């Protein structure tokens, strides 16, 4: 195979591999292509506090259910001395902590990450037979009858009936019948339970549904009570307070019907409290999370499997090929001259830390002053290595001077001068200075300007959110970058600058 053909094969393979793997991650694993989408997530904690006395202790906690709009990822954890496991019975999920003989105050925490969308709600079985009707005293029975009759008149089906009933019970507090049934003071929970009783009295299977609405971060969440009823075909949730049918989008059900919320054996003074932390995370980490939960092997071999600090290093490293691509394009396709092949990338990396304008000004100042001093050194006829060493020391003195003077003048930005790698700066000064002597200032300005321009373009590309995100989440796209660079490597056409340079010859046949 000729080298040209080999190169084509390699380029094709790289393209297919890079794009293919990226497409696989995007389409099948759900890695989004865009970093911009911020998603709301919540961390919900249920905390059981209790005093143990040395007896074997068992704590059971009802765990939250998924809904169609909420996805729950358990992160149950056990303190020392406790075992933790999850029991399922029917649609119930129970977190169980057990310990042989704990002493003293114990705090058990169940926490869960809640993501929006894509939940798998437990499938509730159809009710068996008619519900057991509640028993009212004679006064209560009359009141109940009147309420039922009135609701029946103003509704067409079971859901409408329940909503009408809710309306009366939750809001018409002056209603005599309501007062008869519930008394003067009542809580929402009691009202909801009354609605369930009345529904059952009307032979509609129903139960309460307790949980809370996820919103802003809050310690000590209060449980809310909804009503779930059987409309003949399905279980339907209604919110008696808002009188809306259907599960509220951000409601996290924790306990339904006759399930217990939690149960403690072998300890005293137990208390349960809930807290919610709201969080914004980028869609990227969301995809990673769900890929992790699905046990995806693609993740196993990805950047995300590394420790976070190493990930951060790679977030920078993975940008360097993009800078290299910019340099290749500007040098070989545009025909810009730069001083040192990849010096512009290093300068661009510095700009990411200093901000562009500050960085540019610092760079020009340092190199400019450095060139003047280096010009003087050259008249001393020094040998190369001592000369560069001298320039290096001059550069460090300049750093110091700029930082101190800048700080005194209140220019904090001057402090970031130390981000510039001084060896690179020293070499740049040396090379520019030799260039000035051998080829003249014109070449220095051209190469220096070319380098800075390249650095600025590289900076703009490298700091682009989308680019930074894609290189990090889809490192396989590096293969595509490699393929493009290889393609440019065999490009024998004209550079943009040559269209101008050889313009006088274009008229020739």
């Amino acid at each position: 195979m000729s080298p040209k053909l080999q190169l084509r094969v390699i380029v094709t393979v790289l393209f297919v591999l890079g794009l293919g793997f990226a497409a696989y991650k995007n389409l099948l694993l759900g890695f989004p292509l865009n970093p911009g989408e911020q998603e709301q997530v919540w961390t919900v904690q249920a905390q059981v506090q209790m005093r143990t006395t040395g007896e074997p202790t068992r704590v059971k906690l009802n765990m939250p259910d998924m809904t169609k709009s909420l996805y729950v990822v358990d992160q149950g954890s056990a303190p020392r001395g406790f075992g933790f496991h999850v029991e399922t019975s029917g649609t119930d999920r129970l977190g169980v902590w057990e310990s042989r003989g704990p002493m003293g105050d114990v705090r058990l925490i169940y926490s869960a990450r809640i993501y929006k969308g894509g939940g798998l709600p437990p499938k509730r079985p159809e009710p068996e037979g008619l519900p057991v009707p509640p028993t009212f005293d004679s006064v209560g029975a009359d009141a109940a009858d009147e309420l039922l009759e009135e609701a029946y008149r103003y509704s067409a089906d079971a859901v409408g009936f329940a909503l009408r009933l809710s309306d009366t019970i939750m809001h018409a507090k002056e209603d005599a019948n309501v007062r008869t049934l519930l008394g003067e003071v009542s809580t929402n929970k009691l009202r909801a339970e009354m609605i369930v009783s009345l529904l059952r009295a009307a032979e509609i299977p129903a139960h309460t549904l307790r949980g809370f609405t996820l919103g802003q971060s809050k310690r000590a969440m209060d449980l809310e009570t909804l009503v779930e009823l059987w409309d003949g075909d399905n279980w339907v949730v209604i919110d008696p307070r808002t009188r809306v049918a259907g599960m509220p989008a951000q409601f996290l059900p924790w306990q339904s019907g006759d399930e217990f919320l939690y149960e403690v054996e072998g300890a005293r003074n137990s208390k349960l409290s809930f807290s919610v932390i709201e969080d914004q995370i980028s869609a990227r980490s969301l995809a990673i999370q769900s890929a992790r939960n699905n046990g995806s092997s693609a993740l196993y071999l990805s950047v995300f499997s590394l420790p976070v600090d190493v990930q951060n290093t790679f977030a920078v490293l993975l940008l360097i090929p993009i800078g290299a691509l910019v340099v290749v394009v500007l040098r070989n396709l545009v025909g810009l001259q730069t001083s040192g092949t990849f010096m512009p990338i290093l300068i661009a990396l510095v700009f990411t830390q200093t901000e562009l304008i500050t960085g540019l000004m610092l760079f020009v100042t340092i190199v400019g002053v450095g060139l003047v001093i280096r010009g003087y050194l050259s008249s001393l006829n020094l040998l190369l290595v001592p000369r560069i060493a001298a320039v290096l020391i001059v550069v460090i003195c300049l750093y110091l001077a700029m930082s101190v003077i800048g700080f005194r003048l209140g220019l904090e930005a001057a402090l970031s001068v130390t981000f510039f790698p001084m060896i690179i700066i020293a070499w740049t000064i040396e090379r520019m200075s030799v260039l000035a002597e051998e080829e003249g200032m014109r070449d220095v300005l051209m190469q220096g300007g070319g380098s800075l321009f390249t650095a600025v373009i590289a900076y703009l590309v490298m700091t682009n959110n989308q680019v930074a995100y894609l290189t990090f989440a889809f490192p396989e796209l590096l293969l595509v970058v490699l393929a493009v660079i290889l393609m440019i490597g065999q490009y024998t056409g004209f550079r943009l600058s040559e269209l101008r340079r050889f313009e006088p010859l274009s008229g020739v046949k």
Partner: protein
Amino acid sequence: MLRWASPFALRRAGIVGMNRRNVELIAQNNPRALYPLVDDKLKTKELARKHGLASPKLIGVVRQTGQIRQLAAFLKDHPKFVIKPAQGSGGKGILVISGREGDAYLKPSGAVVAFEEVARHINNTLSGLFSLGGKNDVAMIEEMIEFDPVFDGYTFEGVPDIRVIVYKGFPVMAMTRLSTASSDGKANLHQGAVGVGLDIATGKAMRAVQYDRPVEQHPDTGADLSQIAVPKWAELMELAAHCQSASGLGYMGVDVVLDRVAGPQVLELNARPGLAIQVANGRGMFPRIKAVDDLIAADEDLPSDAVWRANWAMENLAVL
């Protein structure tokens, strides 16, 4: 005003761009291992001697500081000489001595130079002051060229040389580079030297450019550039063609100077010659490259001697 050519027009004109030069001419024809032969002038000199290429004669080489002490005695029989660093770049560190005044030396400008100054110059050369990357170097002492008067009035200070591009042993394009005040006496086109394209068949001037734009007269001396005609052209072409067989480089620049008596002399070889020669010639190099490739592809038993190649090039390439 900026004017741009379309890439298609440039391709039609047969222009070779930088990318094509690097990929197709240099990378495919010049094995890296041969570069030291041309980057180190002492090796080039050795090569020239071995292959009988006309070149300024080497009088001696100073390799160590200790040898400087014997230098005064050694130079007694050589009133005229040139000291250059073997790995110098851009004409740096060249000291020309054109005569004596008692024990002191004379520069062509008439300035008097004491022996101590010559010794210090050599010392600086040895310690790498003039060499690329500051490597330690050696100082070469060569015979001084007596320049042919043909270029009198055409240069400002500097040395007029003739650059010939040799492709696979065939001289394909030539120009002479004339230093100017704005090029600071240097013969580098992009610094403002005048480039005069020479007819590959005759050595006569065709077109002159400065800063890539046409000029008629030398900007400093006012001499009419179109009157330049390089003498002993056939000899010069043969010398250039011969350099390929000697060095093995498939695409090279041969820098030649004209000695009044000895004729064309190879001064330097270049493994990465630039493309400005196309502008000086007012035409692209590609048709000529292609003609050479076609010739080689068509006939495997081409005569191998440089004279034949030089003649073929002079007869066939000028019209392209």
